[in-house]
């Protein structure tokens, strides 16, 4: 009972994290800020939601599988973000951030 409640708290917390990640890619007016913030808050949300689901299902083979998925995402997610940021920087894309007196 108490474990069920804790897992619900975890999942709601993850949804709040992910909301900030989605809000961040509309809030910032500069590509490099977006790539810094948004897709990483994503990782925090992912880990939290997986922790909540692992608590909910209890210990078993599926828990270990979800742990394996988490490990995979920890390895591959930074690589894709790095590829996108490096590709933009090497091509020379650079804009100034939007002024407030627009």
């Amino acid at each position: 009972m108490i474990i069920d409640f804790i897992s619900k708290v975890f999942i709601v917390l993850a949804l709040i994290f992910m909301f900030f990640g989605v809000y961040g890619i509309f809030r910032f007016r500069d590509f490099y800020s977006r790539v810094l913030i948004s897709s990483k808050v994503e990782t925090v949300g992912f880990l939290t939601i997986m922790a909540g689901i692992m608590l909910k299902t209890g210990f078993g083979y599926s828990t270990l599988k979800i742990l394996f998925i988490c490990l995979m995402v920890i390895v591959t997610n930074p690589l894709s973000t790095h590829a996108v940021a490096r590709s933009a920087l090497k091509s020379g894309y650079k804009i100034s951030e939007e002024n407030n007196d627009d």
Partner: protein
Amino acid sequence: MGFLDAVLIVVSIYAAVVLIRVVIGPTIWDRLLGFNMISSKIIMSIVILSVVTDRSFLLDIALVYSFLGFIGTVLIARFVETRGEI
């Protein structure tokens, strides 16, 4: 409708909102960023779906996804960087 069903709907609404950035994003790199985010949200919803319907073999598909979305993003990013030579 249980708690996890509601979570699934919220995650899919997030994916739909990220799609707006993919469509209006001024450059191609914004679109790639959105692609990355949507693919991680799809992985999330597959895991939740496997818990909701109690079918644990769906987790294998999530595992395959976490490899493939990454390969697509890296290939397109390298393609754009080197002007057409992968």
